[in-house]
Protein backbone atom coordinates (compact mmCIF):
# COMPACT_ATOMS: atom_id res chain seq x y z
CA UNK A 1 0.00 0.00 0.00
CA UNK A 2 1.29 3.39 -0.88
CA UNK A 3 2.87 5.54 1.77
CA UNK A 4 1.66 8.73 0.21
CA UNK A 5 4.76 10.79 0.82
CA UNK A 6 4.05 12.56 -2.43
CA UNK A 7 1.23 14.46 -0.91
CA UNK A 8 3.24 16.58 1.46
CA UNK A 9 1.99 19.79 2.92
CA UNK A 10 -0.79 20.36 0.43
CA UNK A 11 -2.19 16.95 1.07
CA UNK A 12 -2.06 17.57 4.77
CA UNK A 13 -3.97 20.82 4.43
CA UNK A 14 -6.57 19.16 2.29
CA UNK A 15 -6.77 16.39 4.82
CA UNK A 16 -7.62 18.88 7.50
CA UNK A 17 -10.70 19.80 5.52
CA UNK A 18 -11.84 16.42 4.34
CA UNK A 19 -10.75 13.96 6.97
CA UNK A 20 -13.65 14.36 9.34
CA UNK A 21 -15.95 13.43 6.48
CA UNK A 22 -13.73 10.88 4.80
CA UNK A 23 -13.49 8.92 8.01
CA UNK A 24 -17.20 8.63 8.52
CA UNK A 25 -17.88 5.40 6.67
CA UNK A 26 -15.68 3.39 8.99
CA UNK A 27 -16.35 2.72 12.64
CA UNK A 28 -19.21 5.13 12.99
CA UNK A 29 -19.81 4.33 16.59
CA UNK A 30 -16.28 5.13 17.58
CA UNK A 31 -14.85 8.28 19.07
CA UNK A 32 -13.67 10.13 15.98
CA UNK A 33 -11.53 12.59 17.87
CA UNK A 34 -8.49 10.33 18.03
CA UNK A 35 -8.50 9.71 14.32
CA UNK A 36 -7.22 13.18 13.76
CA UNK A 37 -4.08 12.46 15.73
CA UNK A 38 -1.24 10.73 13.93
CA UNK A 39 -0.22 7.57 15.73
CA UNK A 40 -3.19 7.66 18.07
CA UNK A 41 -3.73 3.93 17.71
CA UNK A 42 -0.71 1.97 18.94
CA UNK A 43 -2.78 -1.19 19.32
CA UNK A 44 -5.67 -2.83 17.57
CA UNK A 45 -9.04 -1.35 18.43
CA UNK A 46 -12.09 -3.52 19.04
CA UNK A 47 -12.99 -5.31 15.83
CA UNK A 48 -16.30 -3.49 15.61
CA UNK A 49 -14.43 -0.28 14.96
CA UNK A 50 -13.07 -1.68 11.71
CA UNK A 51 -16.37 -3.02 10.44
CA UNK A 52 -18.77 -1.14 8.22
CA UNK A 53 -22.36 -1.23 7.22
CA UNK A 54 -22.47 -3.82 4.46
CA UNK A 55 -24.09 -1.63 1.82
CA UNK A 56 -21.81 1.27 2.63
CA UNK A 57 -18.79 -0.99 2.28
CA UNK A 58 -20.00 -2.28 -1.08
CA UNK A 59 -20.46 1.27 -2.32
CA UNK A 60 -17.09 2.35 -0.97
CA UNK A 61 -15.32 -0.62 -2.55
CA UNK A 62 -16.93 0.09 -5.90
CA UNK A 63 -15.93 3.73 -5.77
CA UNK A 64 -12.28 2.73 -6.20
CA UNK A 65 -12.69 2.45 -9.96
CA UNK A 66 -14.90 4.05 -12.60
CA UNK A 67 -18.40 2.68 -12.47
CA UNK A 68 -18.01 1.13 -15.93
CA UNK A 69 -15.42 -1.16 -14.42
CA UNK A 70 -16.56 -1.69 -10.84
CA UNK A 71 -20.21 -2.44 -11.61
CA UNK A 72 -19.16 -5.82 -13.02
CA UNK A 73 -16.51 -6.52 -10.40
CA UNK A 74 -16.68 -8.95 -7.54
CA UNK A 75 -17.16 -7.04 -4.30
CA UNK A 76 -15.75 -8.20 -0.99
CA UNK A 77 -16.74 -6.98 2.46
CA UNK A 78 -14.99 -7.50 5.76
CA UNK A 79 -16.84 -9.68 8.22
CA UNK A 80 -15.93 -11.00 11.64
CA UNK A 81 -14.14 -13.96 10.12
CA UNK A 82 -12.45 -12.26 7.21
CA UNK A 83 -13.36 -10.98 3.80
CA UNK A 84 -16.37 -12.51 2.15
CA UNK A 85 -17.92 -12.12 -1.25
CA UNK A 86 -20.84 -9.72 -1.13
CA UNK A 87 -21.42 -9.64 -4.88
CA UNK A 88 -20.08 -12.01 -7.49
CA UNK A 89 -18.81 -10.16 -10.54
CA UNK A 90 -18.26 -11.05 -14.14
CA UNK A 91 -15.20 -9.09 -15.30
CA UNK A 92 -12.72 -10.74 -12.93
CA UNK A 93 -11.87 -7.47 -11.18
CA UNK A 94 -12.21 -7.57 -7.40
CA UNK A 95 -13.03 -4.47 -5.38
CA UNK A 96 -12.41 -4.35 -1.66
CA UNK A 97 -11.94 -1.84 1.14
CA UNK A 98 -8.62 -2.59 2.71
CA UNK A 99 -8.06 -1.57 6.32
CA UNK A 100 -5.18 0.12 8.04
CA UNK A 101 -3.25 -3.11 8.49
CA UNK A 102 -2.47 -3.14 4.79
CA UNK A 103 -0.27 -0.10 5.37
CA UNK A 104 3.40 -0.76 6.11
CA UNK A 105 4.02 -2.58 9.39
CA UNK A 106 5.88 0.44 10.74
CA UNK A 107 3.21 2.92 9.67
CA UNK A 108 1.91 5.00 12.57
CA UNK A 109 -1.64 4.49 11.31
CA UNK A 110 -1.36 0.71 11.18
CA UNK A 111 -4.23 0.26 13.63
CA UNK A 112 -6.21 3.40 12.82
CA UNK A 113 -9.81 2.21 12.35
CA UNK A 114 -10.60 5.37 10.41
CA UNK A 115 -8.36 4.30 7.56
CA UNK A 116 -10.30 3.00 4.58
CA UNK A 117 -8.52 2.03 1.39
CA UNK A 118 -10.87 1.06 -1.42
CA UNK A 119 -9.20 -0.54 -4.39
CA UNK A 120 -10.18 -2.56 -7.41
CA UNK A 121 -7.62 -5.15 -8.41
CA UNK A 122 -7.40 -6.36 -11.98
CA UNK A 123 -7.58 -10.10 -12.67
CA UNK A 124 -3.82 -10.83 -12.39
CA UNK A 125 -3.67 -8.87 -9.13
CA UNK A 126 -6.82 -10.48 -7.79
CA UNK A 127 -5.16 -13.84 -8.29
CA UNK A 128 -1.72 -12.95 -7.05
CA UNK A 129 -1.90 -9.93 -4.75
CA UNK A 130 -5.27 -10.21 -3.07
CA UNK A 131 -4.11 -13.32 -1.16
CA UNK A 132 -1.78 -11.02 0.76
CA UNK A 133 -4.81 -9.03 1.93
CA UNK A 134 -6.58 -12.21 2.97
CA UNK A 135 -3.54 -13.52 4.81
CA UNK A 136 -2.85 -10.28 6.64
CA UNK A 137 -6.48 -9.92 7.64
CA UNK A 138 -6.58 -13.49 8.86
CA UNK A 139 -3.64 -12.72 11.16
CA UNK A 140 -5.32 -9.57 12.41
CA UNK A 141 -8.51 -11.40 13.24
CA UNK A 142 -6.44 -14.01 15.06
CA UNK A 143 -5.15 -11.11 17.21
CA UNK A 144 -1.54 -11.50 16.19
CA UNK A 145 0.88 -8.73 17.07
CA UNK A 146 2.57 -6.71 14.36
CA UNK A 147 5.77 -8.65 14.96
CA UNK A 148 3.96 -11.96 14.65
CA UNK A 149 2.23 -10.76 11.51
CA UNK A 150 5.51 -9.63 10.01
CA UNK A 151 7.08 -13.02 10.69
CA UNK A 152 4.10 -14.93 9.34
CA UNK A 153 3.96 -12.91 6.14
CA UNK A 154 7.67 -13.32 5.61
CA UNK A 155 7.40 -17.06 6.16
CA UNK A 156 4.44 -17.30 3.81
CA UNK A 157 6.41 -15.64 1.03
CA UNK A 158 9.53 -17.65 1.81
CA UNK A 159 7.55 -20.88 1.65
CA UNK A 160 5.69 -19.72 -1.46
CA UNK A 161 2.35 -19.93 0.29
CA UNK A 162 1.79 -16.41 -0.93
CA UNK A 163 2.26 -15.86 -4.67
CA UNK A 164 4.39 -13.28 -6.34
CA UNK A 165 2.60 -10.68 -8.48
CA UNK A 166 1.56 -11.99 -11.84
CA UNK A 167 2.60 -10.08 -14.90
CA UNK A 168 0.34 -7.08 -15.46
CA UNK A 169 -0.88 -6.89 -11.86
CA UNK A 170 -2.35 -3.48 -11.11
CA UNK A 171 -5.23 -1.82 -9.34
CA UNK A 172 -7.31 1.32 -9.26
CA UNK A 173 -7.42 3.56 -6.18
CA UNK A 174 -9.55 6.43 -7.42
CA UNK A 175 -12.15 6.74 -4.69
CA UNK A 176 -12.89 10.22 -3.50
CA UNK A 177 -13.71 8.64 -0.13
CA UNK A 178 -10.39 6.88 0.38
CA UNK A 179 -8.66 7.78 3.62
CA UNK A 180 -5.02 7.14 4.44
CA UNK A 181 -5.23 8.61 7.91
CA UNK A 182 -4.30 11.93 9.47
CA UNK A 183 -1.09 12.48 7.57
CA UNK A 184 -2.23 12.04 4.00
CA UNK A 185 -6.00 12.15 4.09
CA UNK A 186 -7.54 11.04 0.84
CA UNK A 187 -4.37 11.77 -1.09
CA UNK A 188 -4.50 11.53 -4.88
CA UNK A 189 -6.43 9.20 -7.14
CA UNK A 190 -3.88 6.79 -8.46
CA UNK A 191 -3.13 3.47 -10.06
CA UNK A 192 -0.78 0.92 -8.53
CA UNK A 193 1.38 -1.63 -10.31
CA UNK A 194 3.01 -4.63 -8.64
CA UNK A 195 6.12 -6.53 -9.61
CA UNK A 196 8.24 -9.22 -7.99
CA UNK A 197 10.98 -7.41 -6.15
CA UNK A 198 13.79 -9.10 -8.04
CA UNK A 199 12.41 -7.28 -11.05
CA UNK A 200 12.86 -3.95 -9.32
CA UNK A 201 13.45 -1.54 -12.12
CA UNK A 202 13.94 2.13 -12.67
CA UNK A 203 10.69 3.94 -13.32
CA UNK A 204 12.02 7.35 -12.42
CA UNK A 205 10.00 7.03 -9.24
CA UNK A 206 10.27 9.50 -6.38
CA UNK A 207 12.17 11.97 -8.54
CA UNK A 208 11.13 15.63 -8.51
CA UNK A 209 8.10 16.24 -10.75
CA UNK A 210 7.76 12.53 -11.52
CA UNK A 211 4.16 11.28 -11.28
CA UNK A 212 5.47 7.91 -10.11
CA UNK A 213 6.31 6.74 -6.58
CA UNK A 214 7.83 3.44 -5.56
CA UNK A 215 7.25 1.48 -2.36
CA UNK A 216 8.77 -1.68 -1.00
CA UNK A 217 7.16 -2.85 2.21
CA UNK A 218 9.17 -5.34 4.16
CA UNK A 219 8.80 -8.29 4.35
CA UNK A 220 6.91 -8.39 1.06
CA UNK A 221 9.25 -9.22 -1.83
CA UNK A 222 7.18 -6.90 -3.99
CA UNK A 223 7.86 -3.61 -5.72
CA UNK A 224 4.87 -1.31 -5.85
CA UNK A 225 4.68 1.66 -8.17
CA UNK A 226 1.96 4.25 -7.76
CA UNK A 227 1.01 6.69 -10.45
CA UNK A 228 -1.21 9.67 -9.83
CA UNK A 229 -4.06 10.30 -12.23
CA UNK A 230 -6.00 13.46 -12.79
CA UNK A 231 -9.54 12.46 -11.82
CA UNK A 232 -11.47 10.57 -9.21
CA UNK A 233 -13.48 7.56 -10.28
CA UNK A 234 -16.60 9.70 -10.64
CA UNK A 235 -14.86 11.82 -13.25
CA UNK A 236 -14.33 14.91 -11.12
CA UNK A 237 -10.94 16.59 -11.23
CA UNK A 238 -8.67 15.65 -8.38
CA UNK A 239 -7.50 19.12 -7.45
CA UNK A 240 -4.44 20.94 -6.27
CA UNK A 241 -2.45 18.06 -4.85
CA UNK A 242 -2.61 16.10 -8.07
CA UNK A 243 0.66 15.92 -9.89
Amino acid at each position, binding site marked *: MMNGKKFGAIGFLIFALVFPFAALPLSQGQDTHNRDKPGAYPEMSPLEHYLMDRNAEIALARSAAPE*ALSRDATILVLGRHGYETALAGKNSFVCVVERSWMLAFDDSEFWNPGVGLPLCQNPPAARSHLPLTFKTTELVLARRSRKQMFDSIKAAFDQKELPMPEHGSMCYMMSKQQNFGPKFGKADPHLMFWFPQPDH*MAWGADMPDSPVDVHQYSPQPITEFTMSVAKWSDGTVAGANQR
Partner: protein
Amino acid sequence: MNSNRFVPLAAFSLALILAFAVPGRLAGQDNKTPYPSMAPLEQYLMHRDAEIALARSAAPESISHDATVLVLGRHGYEIAVEGKNGFVCAVERGWMSPADAPQFWNPNIRGSICFNPPAARSVLPVTYKRTEMVLAGRTKAEITDGNKTAFKRGELPALEPGAMSYMMSKEAYLTDDGDHNLAHLMFYTPPLDGKVWGADLPKSPVMLNPQFKGAQPIDVFIVPVGRWSDGTPAPVM
Protein backbone atom coordinates in the same frame (compact mmCIF):
# COMPACT_ATOMS: atom_id res chain seq x y z
CA MET B 1 -14.88 4.07 -29.34
CA ASN B 2 -15.92 5.05 -25.91
CA SER B 3 -18.14 8.00 -26.66
CA ASN B 4 -18.76 8.94 -23.04
CA ARG B 5 -15.17 9.94 -22.61
CA PHE B 6 -15.25 12.39 -25.44
CA VAL B 7 -18.39 14.35 -24.87
CA PRO B 8 -16.99 16.81 -22.32
CA LEU B 9 -13.57 16.85 -23.82
CA ALA B 10 -14.03 18.64 -27.08
CA ALA B 11 -11.36 21.15 -26.17
CA PHE B 12 -8.92 18.42 -25.42
CA SER B 13 -10.00 15.53 -27.51
CA LEU B 14 -8.22 12.25 -27.47
CA ALA B 15 -7.77 12.94 -31.11
CA LEU B 16 -4.63 14.77 -30.24
CA ILE B 17 -2.87 11.57 -29.35
CA LEU B 18 -4.74 9.17 -31.50
CA ALA B 19 -2.97 9.96 -34.70
CA PHE B 20 0.37 9.26 -33.13
CA ALA B 21 -0.22 7.08 -30.15
CA VAL B 22 -3.69 5.61 -30.51
CA PRO B 23 -4.35 5.72 -34.20
CA GLY B 24 -6.81 2.86 -34.25
CA ARG B 25 -9.60 4.96 -32.81
CA LEU B 26 -9.36 7.58 -35.46
CA ALA B 27 -8.40 5.45 -38.37
CA GLY B 28 -11.96 5.14 -39.54
CA GLN B 29 -12.65 8.84 -39.30
CA ASP B 30 -10.38 10.01 -42.06
CA ASN B 31 -9.71 7.73 -44.96
CA LYS B 32 -7.92 10.42 -46.93
CA THR B 33 -4.60 10.82 -45.25
CA PRO B 34 -2.87 14.08 -46.09
CA TYR B 35 0.46 12.30 -45.79
CA PRO B 36 0.31 9.42 -48.27
CA SER B 37 4.06 8.91 -48.55
CA MET B 38 7.31 9.90 -47.02
CA ALA B 39 8.25 13.56 -47.30
CA PRO B 40 11.82 14.60 -48.12
CA LEU B 41 14.08 13.51 -45.28
CA GLU B 42 15.02 17.08 -44.45
CA GLN B 43 11.49 17.72 -43.24
CA TYR B 44 11.89 15.12 -40.52
CA LEU B 45 15.22 16.41 -39.28
CA MET B 46 15.78 19.00 -36.58
CA HIS B 47 18.46 21.30 -35.37
CA ARG B 48 20.65 19.17 -33.15
CA ASP B 49 20.43 21.28 -30.00
CA ALA B 50 16.70 21.75 -30.40
CA GLU B 51 16.24 18.00 -30.75
CA ILE B 52 18.29 17.34 -27.63
CA ALA B 53 16.21 19.81 -25.66
CA LEU B 54 12.95 18.41 -27.04
CA ALA B 55 13.98 14.84 -26.27
CA ARG B 56 14.90 15.75 -22.70
CA SER B 57 11.60 17.54 -22.17
CA ALA B 58 9.77 14.22 -22.33
CA ALA B 59 10.53 13.51 -18.68
CA PRO B 60 11.05 15.63 -15.59
CA GLU B 61 14.49 17.19 -15.58
CA SER B 62 15.41 15.06 -12.58
CA ILE B 63 15.23 12.04 -14.88
CA SER B 64 16.23 13.37 -18.28
CA HIS B 65 19.21 15.33 -17.00
CA ASP B 66 21.17 12.09 -16.62
CA ALA B 67 19.63 10.25 -19.57
CA THR B 68 21.28 9.31 -22.81
CA VAL B 69 19.91 11.54 -25.55
CA LEU B 70 19.52 10.49 -29.16
CA VAL B 71 19.08 12.64 -32.23
CA LEU B 72 17.95 11.61 -35.69
CA GLY B 73 20.58 11.95 -38.35
CA ARG B 74 20.63 11.08 -42.02
CA HIS B 75 21.70 7.53 -41.25
CA GLY B 76 19.56 6.87 -38.22
CA TYR B 77 19.52 7.74 -34.56
CA GLU B 78 22.83 8.62 -33.02
CA ILE B 79 23.91 9.34 -29.49
CA ALA B 80 24.18 13.05 -28.86
CA VAL B 81 24.67 12.87 -25.10
CA GLU B 82 25.87 9.89 -23.07
CA GLY B 83 23.81 9.38 -19.96
CA LYS B 84 24.34 7.60 -16.69
CA ASN B 85 20.94 6.58 -15.33
CA GLY B 86 19.94 4.03 -17.98
CA PHE B 87 17.11 6.17 -19.37
CA VAL B 88 17.21 7.06 -23.05
CA CYS B 89 15.41 10.10 -24.44
CA ALA B 90 14.64 10.61 -28.12
CA VAL B 91 12.23 12.35 -30.43
CA GLU B 92 10.27 9.78 -32.36
CA ARG B 93 8.76 10.57 -35.74
CA GLY B 94 5.42 9.63 -37.24
CA TRP B 95 6.59 6.24 -38.42
CA MET B 96 6.48 4.93 -34.87
CA SER B 97 2.71 4.91 -35.32
CA PRO B 98 0.91 1.84 -36.63
CA ALA B 99 0.92 1.47 -40.40
CA ASP B 100 -2.74 2.48 -40.59
CA ALA B 101 -2.20 5.73 -38.71
CA PRO B 102 -3.16 8.70 -40.89
CA GLN B 103 -0.09 10.65 -39.88
CA PHE B 104 2.46 7.89 -40.28
CA TRP B 105 4.40 10.08 -42.72
CA ASN B 106 3.49 13.42 -41.16
CA PRO B 107 6.84 15.25 -41.01
CA ASN B 108 5.58 17.52 -38.25
CA ILE B 109 5.21 14.73 -35.70
CA ARG B 110 7.64 15.04 -32.80
CA GLY B 111 7.08 12.37 -30.19
CA SER B 112 9.41 13.23 -27.34
CA ILE B 113 9.93 10.15 -25.23
CA CYS B 114 12.18 8.95 -22.42
CA PHE B 115 12.44 5.17 -22.10
CA ASN B 116 13.25 3.63 -18.74
CA PRO B 117 16.13 1.13 -18.74
CA PRO B 118 14.04 -2.00 -19.48
CA ALA B 119 12.28 -0.16 -22.30
CA ALA B 120 15.53 1.28 -23.60
CA ARG B 121 16.84 -2.27 -23.91
CA SER B 122 13.74 -3.95 -25.24
CA VAL B 123 11.47 -1.36 -26.92
CA LEU B 124 13.85 1.27 -28.27
CA PRO B 125 15.40 -1.26 -30.68
CA VAL B 126 12.07 -1.20 -32.51
CA THR B 127 12.54 2.52 -33.06
CA TYR B 128 16.00 1.89 -34.46
CA LYS B 129 14.73 -0.87 -36.71
CA ARG B 130 11.79 1.07 -38.10
CA THR B 131 13.90 4.17 -38.64
CA GLU B 132 16.50 2.12 -40.47
CA MET B 133 13.81 0.85 -42.82
CA VAL B 134 12.39 4.34 -43.30
CA LEU B 135 15.77 5.69 -44.25
CA ALA B 136 16.18 2.79 -46.67
CA GLY B 137 13.03 3.95 -48.45
CA ARG B 138 10.70 1.15 -47.37
CA THR B 139 6.92 1.47 -47.62
CA LYS B 140 4.60 1.32 -44.64
CA ALA B 141 3.68 -2.27 -45.41
CA GLU B 142 7.33 -3.22 -45.78
CA ILE B 143 8.14 -1.54 -42.49
CA THR B 144 5.43 -3.45 -40.65
CA ASP B 145 6.49 -6.71 -42.25
CA GLY B 146 10.13 -5.96 -41.61
CA ASN B 147 9.39 -5.27 -37.96
CA LYS B 148 7.49 -8.53 -37.66
CA THR B 149 10.18 -10.54 -39.44
CA ALA B 150 12.98 -9.02 -37.38
CA PHE B 151 11.20 -10.00 -34.19
CA LYS B 152 10.55 -13.53 -35.39
CA ARG B 153 14.19 -13.93 -36.31
CA GLY B 154 15.30 -12.77 -32.90
CA GLU B 155 16.86 -9.61 -34.26
CA LEU B 156 14.71 -7.63 -31.85
CA PRO B 157 14.80 -8.43 -28.12
CA ALA B 158 11.94 -9.79 -26.09
CA LEU B 159 10.07 -7.27 -24.00
CA GLU B 160 11.51 -6.89 -20.50
CA PRO B 161 9.25 -6.68 -17.43
CA GLY B 162 8.60 -3.17 -16.20
CA ALA B 163 9.26 -1.43 -19.50
CA MET B 164 7.68 2.03 -19.53
CA SER B 165 8.29 5.50 -20.87
CA TYR B 166 7.57 9.14 -20.18
CA MET B 167 5.86 11.39 -22.73
CA MET B 168 5.31 14.55 -20.72
CA SER B 169 6.80 17.17 -23.01
CA LYS B 170 4.86 20.37 -23.34
CA GLU B 171 6.53 20.92 -26.72
CA ALA B 172 5.75 17.55 -28.30
CA TYR B 173 3.63 17.42 -31.42
CA LEU B 174 1.70 14.18 -31.58
CA THR B 175 -1.02 14.98 -34.07
CA ASP B 176 -2.41 17.70 -36.29
CA ASP B 177 -5.63 17.52 -34.32
CA GLY B 178 -6.76 19.34 -31.22
CA ASP B 179 -4.06 20.67 -28.95
CA HIS B 180 -1.53 18.34 -30.58
CA ASN B 181 -0.30 16.89 -27.35
CA LEU B 182 -0.98 14.99 -24.15
CA ALA B 183 1.13 14.47 -21.03
CA HIS B 184 1.18 10.74 -20.37
CA LEU B 185 3.15 7.66 -19.44
CA MET B 186 3.23 4.48 -21.47
CA PHE B 187 3.51 0.95 -20.13
CA TYR B 188 4.62 -1.93 -22.32
CA THR B 189 3.32 -5.44 -21.73
CA PRO B 190 3.10 -8.72 -23.59
CA PRO B 191 -0.25 -8.90 -25.36
CA LEU B 192 -3.09 -8.58 -22.86
CA ASP B 193 -6.75 -8.18 -23.39
CA GLY B 194 -7.26 -4.47 -22.79
CA LYS B 195 -10.01 -5.42 -20.38
CA VAL B 196 -7.37 -6.80 -18.04
CA TRP B 197 -6.35 -3.23 -17.24
CA GLY B 198 -9.83 -1.76 -17.56
CA ALA B 199 -8.68 0.15 -20.60
CA ASP B 200 -10.94 2.36 -22.70
CA LEU B 201 -13.89 2.21 -20.35
CA PRO B 202 -15.79 5.41 -19.54
CA LYS B 203 -13.82 7.52 -17.04
CA SER B 204 -10.97 5.03 -16.98
CA PRO B 205 -7.59 6.78 -17.17
CA VAL B 206 -6.14 3.82 -19.04
CA MET B 207 -6.12 3.52 -22.82
CA LEU B 208 -4.85 0.70 -24.97
CA ASN B 209 -2.60 1.92 -27.75
CA PRO B 210 -2.20 -0.44 -30.73
CA GLN B 211 1.19 1.04 -31.58
CA PHE B 212 2.78 -2.27 -32.44
CA LYS B 213 -0.31 -3.95 -33.81
CA GLY B 214 0.53 -6.43 -36.51
CA ALA B 215 4.24 -5.88 -36.09
CA GLN B 216 5.31 -7.17 -32.71
CA PRO B 217 3.67 -8.79 -29.66
CA ILE B 218 3.76 -5.70 -27.43
CA ASP B 219 0.75 -3.97 -25.95
CA VAL B 220 1.06 -0.34 -24.95
CA PHE B 221 -1.12 1.16 -22.24
CA ILE B 222 -1.33 4.94 -21.99
CA VAL B 223 -2.15 6.76 -18.76
CA PRO B 224 -2.44 10.56 -18.92
CA VAL B 225 -0.94 12.61 -16.11
CA GLY B 226 -1.96 16.01 -14.82
CA ARG B 227 1.34 17.81 -15.31
CA TRP B 228 3.91 18.45 -17.95
CA SER B 229 7.50 17.48 -17.30
CA ASP B 230 8.28 20.99 -16.10
CA GLY B 231 5.72 20.62 -13.33
CA THR B 232 3.12 22.94 -14.81
CA PRO B 233 -0.48 21.69 -14.98
CA ALA B 234 -1.44 19.83 -18.14
CA PRO B 235 -4.97 19.77 -19.52
CA VAL B 236 -7.05 17.18 -17.74
CA MET B 237 -8.84 14.62 -19.81
